[in-house]
């Protein structure tokens, strides 16, 4: 297991070097997809490598000549990386500009300062009622496919797209299996290792990642874990389209809590819904996008309460509490949070919110909050 985890750590500890080297090794174009809802399968079917854009570990410097300090961490970090030339290995970038307002910062800044050979804009709609939404979504995805064909010079046949969907579906199944084993044997992997596993899926070619996961699963199935009953199960929840500082996950575990599952994008949400293989593949991708759960506050879902969904997850995992992780200056999460909190109070579910910032986070203050949270649940 150490060998696989060490490979995953290598990929995620320096994604810039890894992806740049990958481009050379595979001789394929790299397309950066700003998280969270870009259908990577279509890029894969055009014989290019989609990678999900990430937040760096460095402080924002040049980026502040382009975006204000009250944009969220990944917005500032991505712009900073881009204008410093750290993402020059990307042949293309894709932005879904209706996800949140801040994604709208990118098209001009990128085009004006570091325009890649390919830049595409998607306007995926919120999941509102009525026929216009789906037909508009389909048009948008068809147009995305056409632009990729144009850039790659390769026609994307339905068969090719289905093959890519199959590879991605397999990755989802394998990741789901990792999560199932962790649910049965919490502690088999550290929370940060699980996050790294999902993150590496966003960076690696899915075929390679599938092989890695198969090896990991073989090892996981053999491994036994000593059950520590006194540990309190908690579920981290958030709308962040980025990784969180691994120190936070370590801290949660060091304080006597354990994470059997999560409701995070760089986590269970990334692989939650597979794409059906029958019928028109573009329509199948649209149908996957239109699934309302796991609920994402950026997708305009009215009739499903995020709190209810999270409580279901809490109960399925026999967990005791929720840790809401909010990225500072994330409007979709911030607007939703009061209703989420009310639901937790109404249902008697212990919940605490911690704020995550890109540069400065008071780990000591966070530790105090998490410690008292664990104690109120009867732990530590």
């Amino acid at each position: 297991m150490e060998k696989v985890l060490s490979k995953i750590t290598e990929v995620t500890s320096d994604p810039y070097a890894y992806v740049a080297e990958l481009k050379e090794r595979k001789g394929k174009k790299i397309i950066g997809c700003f998280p969270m809802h870009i259908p990577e399968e279509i890029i894969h079917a055009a014989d290019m490598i989609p990678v999900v854009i990430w937040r760096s570990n460095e402080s924002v410097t040049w980026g502040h000549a382009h975006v204000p300090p009250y944009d969220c961490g990944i917005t500032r970090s991505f712009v900073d990386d881009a204008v410093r030339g750290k993402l020059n290995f990307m042949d293309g970038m894709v932005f879904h500009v209706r996800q949140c307002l801040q994604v709208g910062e990118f098209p001009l800044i990128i085009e004006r300062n570091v325009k890649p050979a390919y830049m595409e804009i998607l306007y995926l709609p919120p999941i509102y009622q009525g026929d216009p939404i789906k037909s508009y979504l389909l048009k948008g995805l068809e147009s995305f496919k056409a632009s990729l064909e144009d850039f790659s010079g390769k026609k994307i046949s339905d068969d090719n797209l289905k093959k890519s969907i199959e590879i991605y579906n397999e990755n989802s199944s394998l990741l789901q299996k990792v999560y199932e084993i962790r649910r049965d044997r919490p502690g088999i992997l550290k929370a940060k290792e699980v996050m790294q596993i999902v993150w590496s899926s966003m960076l690696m070619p899915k075929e390679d990642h599938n092989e890695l996961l198969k090896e990991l699963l073989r090892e996981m199935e053999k491994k036994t874990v000593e059950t520590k009953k006194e540990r309190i199960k908690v579920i981290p929840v958030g709308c962040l389209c980025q990784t969180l500082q691994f120190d936070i996950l370590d801290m949660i575990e060091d304080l006597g809590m354990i994470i059997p599952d999560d409701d995070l994008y760089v986590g269970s949400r990334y692989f939650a819904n597979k794409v059906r293989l029958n019928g028109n593949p573009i329509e199948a991708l649209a149908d996957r996008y239109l699934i309302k759960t796991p609920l994402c506050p950026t997708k305009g879902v009215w009739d499903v309460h995020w709190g209810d969904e999270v409580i279901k997850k809490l109960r399925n995992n026999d967990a005791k509490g929720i840790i809401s992780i909010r990225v500072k200056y994330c409007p979709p999460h911030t607007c939703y949070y009061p209703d989420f909190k009310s639901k937790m109070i109404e249902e008697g579910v212990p919940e605490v919110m911690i704020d995550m910032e890109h540069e400065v986070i008071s780990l000591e203050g966070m530790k105090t909050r998490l410690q008292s949270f664990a104690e109120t649940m009867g732990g530590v």
Partner: protein
Amino acid sequence: MDVQYKINRLEATNDIRPMVNRHWAELRTAKERGEKVGWASGPSFMFPYAMGMKCHFMAGYASYCGGIGAANEVLKVAEMTGDLPETCSYHRLHMGMAEAVRKGISIMPEAILPLPDLMVAGRYCTEQSHYAEGLYRRMGIRVVPVELPFVFRKEDRLMIRDFVYRQFKEIVIPTLEEVCGKPFDYDRLSEILSILKKTATIRNKCWEFFKTKPSTWTLWDYAVSMAPVIYMMGDPVGIPFYEKLLKELQDRKEKGIPAMAPEGEKYRIYWDGWIPWAFLGKFMRKFTPNGALCIVGRYPWEMFPHPELLDPEHPVDSVVDYMYGEQAGLAGNMAPKHSIEFIGGLIEEYSIDGLVMFSSKSCRMWNLSYLDVIDTLDKRCGVPGVVIEGDMIDQDMVSDSQIETRLQALFETIDGRRKRK
């Protein structure tokens, strides 16, 4: 000796407050008369109006609360009831007001609106529908959401136009028919647009007086006069109001009375972003002593700038083309790349000396890629700009010294460039 600048106040704008007060009072009392009530965001309120509903407009309500001094206490209610301070202040304002109604928390009576029978939640800004989602979750208020994307590339316009048209025709109108129990009144929508067309045509004649040097009125004068060309559309009182305003501006021009005494403005300023509704006086006091006059801006120019394109015979197309038409295309000006062309045009047309980009800390809708927009315009038009940070209505987000320092830097830059010419 330094020139002592001061603003010559217009007479006509005194008429606006009673008109606006009447509008909101009628909305407040609508349920007592058995009328249906709507709330709307994005430019979608004309559809409930056409059905005879009394309807609020999200930004209009915020400007009203800012103007009557109610914003602060309503924002405090929102915080008390769980909203986080960095949330969009328009969002917080609505949640605060609704929570005040629900929980019986005392706020200024003029700020209290009846909860709606239907919310037409136009999602123009991506964060704009969150308040409607919240009210649905908390109070079960019925919502009909409409996606209204900004157009980032001209080639996407037609696809988006078709989509928005279909949402109005296939979703919004049938929902209104169901809520009101009668067929949609296309004739009334046409009538509303006819009145708007007349009002905005006169308003455009008033805009011409911003081009005179010195200007005969200020952007703030226009900002407080916008209601008849936006959320009071369809009310014929807007026509005599703008006629009176036009006459006063003509008189001023003939008599040589500038907006800024004693002899007109030293700096002609373009203002970008929201209007700081709760702090108009405060901001004016930062500009006026320096001889700086705000005279034009992208947001105030959003209110039906092309009345000649309004076609009351095709009312739904007209509303959609206001946002997504080839010639007007308001939603295109929201995308930073196209805003550069639009602002560049205003700089030329209104002889602008400097740009002030008002960045709202709780709402980035107007502020996307600001620093790149400024840099591009400076290189293209030779006009410098600064970003000042604050908020439309939340006083806790406005820092005087930061704003003053940056404005001073702008004025010095303009002076420096003038000397070098």
